[in-house]
């Protein structure tokens, strides 16, 4: 990770000032930090262009009827990892698919309207994939914290 990849202090302050409300005016951010509005605008543009920062509408899963959230750990034959993770990534309900070290070599996160639909996805789309050895589902009971991050493209 080179020095250029991370944010300098002012960039970080600007990003933090915008964190809770991504639509906050640059004028207000400039006022809070005691800097020029043009500086905020230019810094944000530069961070956006470099893929370091983005502004996104995020949804409350419970408010849009997605009541069943689960971690799905999957043991996959190693020689099939690319095929299986490619297929898993194409499932809409899986917003998160990773290749891991640990008990499971693939971990996914599913957001579904109901347990029935999660069950359908697991039995009809996941367990049938060649290379899937076993799955273990951990349904989420309570969310205490859920922040979002993203990765720079091609990083």
């Amino acid at each position: 990770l080179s020095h250029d990849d991370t944010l300098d202090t002012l960039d970080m302050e600007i990003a933090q000032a915008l964190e809770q409300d991504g639509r906050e005016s640059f004028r207000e951010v400039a006022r809070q930090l005691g800097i020029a509005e043009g500086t905020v605008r230019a810094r944000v543009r530069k961070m956006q262009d470099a893929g370091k920062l983005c502004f996104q509408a995020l949804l409350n899963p419970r408010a849009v009827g997605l009541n069943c959230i689960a971690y799905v750990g999957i043991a996959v034959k190693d020689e099939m990892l690319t095929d299986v993770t490619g297929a898993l990534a194409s499932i809409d309900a899986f917003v998160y698919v990773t290749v891991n070290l640990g008990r499971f070599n693939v971990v996914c996160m599913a957001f579904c309207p109901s347990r029935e639909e999660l069950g359908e996805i697991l039995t009809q789309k996941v367990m049938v994939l060649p290379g899937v050895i076993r799955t273990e589902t951990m349904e989420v009971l309570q969310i205490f914290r859920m922040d979002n991050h993203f990765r720079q493209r091609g990083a």
Partner: protein
Amino acid sequence: VATEKRKESGPKGQDLRPGNARLITTSPQPPPAVFQHLDSIDVQIIQLLREDGRMTVRALSQKIGIAEPTVGNRIKALHDGRVMKVKTLISLEASGRPLAAIIGIRTSGRAIDKIAADLSEIDGVVSVMSVLGRFDLCVGFSAVNLEDLRNALEKEFGRVRGVNSLECQLALEEVKLTPLWATF
């Protein structure tokens, strides 16, 4: 045939063929199931704000074909109703914590919400959820490097009262990472 099918069903036309598994998604639309509960104007606002969270009210009103005050009111209602909020996301690389891990935790002898509150305070913790199954809590964590991860396991996670055992799953590759949901 299966390969072709996957390619077609990839989000945003990304190539999901073997060897091109890396398809990190930063701005896709939510699954269609999400929109069943919303009217068409709200759906359009959300879709446009998924593409660019800072799109102006004027641009939104022109694209959707409704009055500017209506757009403003709709955004406010979505926000106040805890349905949608526009947040600023910093990439894992830019935040200096490029390693992602999921830590499964078993607890005992202390209320889970208290344990969760302590875990939420740890630098680099992204998510904390209680779960049914093998673990009691699943924690998303992003680390500066392996040394930082090692130290956090011993000195931070391991020392939270009520944490019984830890099992760390370190991500080698994020095949799909869609920032879509938030707590409100």
